[in-house]
C-alpha cells in the first residue's frame, strides 16, 4: 500500500469511529439516562450538529478543492436544512386540528 493510500485509510477509519461514537452516545442519552426530555432533545441536536461536522470533514472533503464550490454547496445545504427543520417545526406546531 502506498503512503498516500495509507493516510487516507487512516483518515476514513478515524471518521468512521467518530461517527459511530456520536451515534451511540445519542442512543445512550435517549434510552438510558433519566434527564428531562428537553435536555435530552438539546443534547441530541448538539450531537447531530457534531455528526454533521464529522461527516463534512472526514468524508465530504470540505477542506479541499475550490473554495467557491465549497461555500456554495455549504450555503445551499444550510438553506435546505433550515427550511426543512424550521419549516417542519412551524407546520407541526401551529396545526389548528391539534389545538
Amino acid at each position: 500500500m502506498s503512503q498516500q493510500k495509507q493516510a487516507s485509510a487512516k483518515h476514513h477509519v478515524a471518521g468512521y469511529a467518530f461517527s459511530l461514537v456520536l451515534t451511540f452516545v445519542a442512543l445512550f442519552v435517549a434510552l438510558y439516562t433519566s434527564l428531562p426530555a428537553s435536555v435530552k432533545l438539546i443534547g441530541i441536536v448538539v450531537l447531530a450538529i457534531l455528526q454533521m461536522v464529522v461527516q463534512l470533514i472526514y468524508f465530504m472533503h470540505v477542506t479541499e478543492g475550490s473554495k467557491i464550490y465549497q461555500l456554495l454547496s455549504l450555503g445551499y445545504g444550510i438553506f435546505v436544512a433550515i427550511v426543512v427543520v424550521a419549516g417542519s417545526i412551524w407546520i407541526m406546531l401551529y396545526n389548528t386540528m391539534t389545538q
Partner: protein
Amino acid sequence: MDLFDMKMPDQLIVWGNPLINGAWISIILVTLGIVFVLTKYKKWRWLWDEWLTTVDHKKIGIMYIVSALLMLFRGGVDALLMRIQLALPNLEFLDAQHYNEIFTTHGTVMIIFMAMPFLIGLMNVAVPLQIGARDVAFPTLNAISFWLFFAGALLFNLSFVIGGSPDAGWTNYVPLAGEELTPGIGINYYLWGLQISGIGTLATGINFLVTILKMRAPGMTLMRMPMFTWSTLITSVIIVFAFPVLTVALALLTFDRLLGAHFFTIDGGGMPMMWANLFWIWGHPEVYIVILPAFGIFSEVISTFARKRLFGYSAMVVSIVAISALSFLVWVHHFFTMGNGPWINSVFSITTMAIAIPTGVKVFNWLFTMYKGRIEFTTPMLWSLAFIPNFIIGGVTGVMLASAPADYQYHNSYFLISHFHYVLIGGTVFGCLAGLYYWWPKMFGFKINERISKWAFWVFVIGFNMTFIPMYLVGLKGMPRRIYTYREGLGWTGLNFIETVGTFVMGAGFVLLVWAIIYSIRHAKRDYESDPWNGRTLEWAIASPPPHYNFARVPRITGQDPLWRAKKKGETIFEEKTPLKPIHMPNHTGIPAVMAGFWFVAGFGFVFEWIPVGLAGILGVLLCMMWRSLTDYHDHHEVPVTELRDAAAEEIKNAGGRSARGVVNDG
C-alpha cells in the same frame, strides 16, 4: 419480532383473478421467449459483455430508456384498467381493492420508474457528449445507479403477482399505510422498491453534478453550456438535496412497520402528519426533477429547429437556478387542507405562485426563440410545439390550486388530477419523447420514421386532451379522485365516458409510436450521419453512434453552440495538428449488476419480513463493496492511438470548418 419467524403472507402467489392469471401467463411466456432467443442465437455472452457489465454512459442511457418505455407500457395498462372501470357508473370490472392497488402502482411506476429513468437515460446519452467529456465522473457508480433502479423497479413490479401490491396511493399516507390499518406486505414493496431505486437516483445526482462541474472540455465555461446540460446540473442539485429526505422518510416508515417503532403512529407519541410533511418536502422538488430536464430538451430542440440561438440564455439560467431554490419552499401546497394555521397556508400560497414566474419567463423565451426563425416541423419539434400550450394549461390550473382557500374546493378532485397530468404528460412525457426522437440518430445511426411518428404524435395529443379536459370539468362537478365507482345521476357519466375513449386513443398513439420504432429498426436506412438535424452542440460533431471514448481529440470551445459556430465561421473545435494521445478508459465490471442482485434479495427478504433473507442480501451488498474497493485501482485500460485515427478524421470532417447548410439570421 422473532428473527427466524419466516411467516407466509395470505397469498404468496397471487392467482385467481383472470387479469392476474393473464399477467402470470404472459410473464412466463415472455421470460421463456427471451431465454430461448438468447440461447438459440448464442447471445448470452454478448448480453453480459456488451450490456450487463458496461460502464459506458451511452449504453447505460439506452438501458434506462428501454426500461422506462417498458414501465410506460406497464403504467399505461394500469391507466387503461382504471379508465375501463370508470367508463360508466356502477361497473364491476375491478373491485375496490384491486382498483386501489392499480392507482397506487400506476402513480408510483409512472413517476419513479418511468419519468425519472427516462430523463436520466437521456442525460446519460447526451450530457457527457454536450460538454466534451469522455465519460461521466464515476462510470462504475453510474452503472450501480442504473442497476439499483432496475432492482427496485423489478421488486416493485413483482408485487402484483407475488404477495399483493401496495394500495395506499403513490403518496402512501399514514395512518392508512401503517401496520395497523394495512397489515400485510404490499406497503413493504413500496418502501423497499423506492428505497433501493432512490439510492441509485441519489448517486446519479452526485455523478452528474461532479461530471458537469469537473469534466467540461477546455473553454466550455458554465455560461457556454447547452441548456440541457444546465438543466441537468440544476436537477442534480435538487436530487442531491431532496432525495435524502425520501430515504429517511422511507426508512422511518420501514422501522414503524417492520420493527414496531412509532414515528408516524399516534400511540407512542408519533405524528402521522409528519409523513405527509416529509413526503412532500421530497415530493415537490421531485416534480421539478422531472420537469427541468424536459425544459432543457425543449430548449435544445426548439433552438435547433428554429435555426436560431436560444433567446434569453441567461434569463433561462437565472430561471432554473431560481426554481431550484423555490422548489424547496412550496411543499405545503400539497396539504393545505390538513389544518395548518392561516399564516402557514398564506406563506406557502405565495411561494407557490412565485414559482410560476420563472416558469413563465421560460415560456416567453421559447416563443421568442421561434419568432422569425425558419421552423422545421420534425417530430421532436412537433412534441416541443405541443408542449407549450398543453403545459400552460397545466401551469395556469396550478396557480389556481396555489390559492389555499380555493384549494379547499379543488383538492383531491379530478381537477387536481388533470392539473398534474397536464404538466407531467404535456411537460415531462412530451419532453422525453422529443428527446428520444432528437437523440435517437445519435444513439443508433438512423432516424425514426417521420411519417408514422407524426401519426403517433397527432393521435396521442388528441387522445391526451380528450382524456384530461373532461377531467377538469368533472372535477369541478365534484368528482373526487381515488374512487373506484360512482352512481348515476351525478352528471359525471358522459364526461367519464369521453375520458375513457380518449385514453384508448392515447393508447393507440403509444402503439403507433412503438410501431414507428420497430418499423424503423427494421427498415430505416442506416446512414450513420453525424449531424442529421444540422445541430448546434458538441454531440453532433462526432460519429453516430459515437465511439466508446466519445472524443478522439478533446474539443476546444470558444462560445455557445460550438458546432454551429464552427460550421458558420469555419472555425475548428478539434485541433488537427495536436498529436493523438492514448486514452484511459474504465474497464467493464460485473460488480454493479451483482450488487444490485443482492439488493434485490435484501429487498425481497425485508418485504416479506424474512429477516435472515434480508440480512443475507445486505451481506452480499457489503461483500461487493469490499471487492470493489480492493480492485478499483487497476480497472483501467488504454485505447491506443492507432484505434483513434478514423474517429479523429470524422471529427475534423464534421467540425473542422465545413460550412453549414441553411444558416439563417443567427446571432
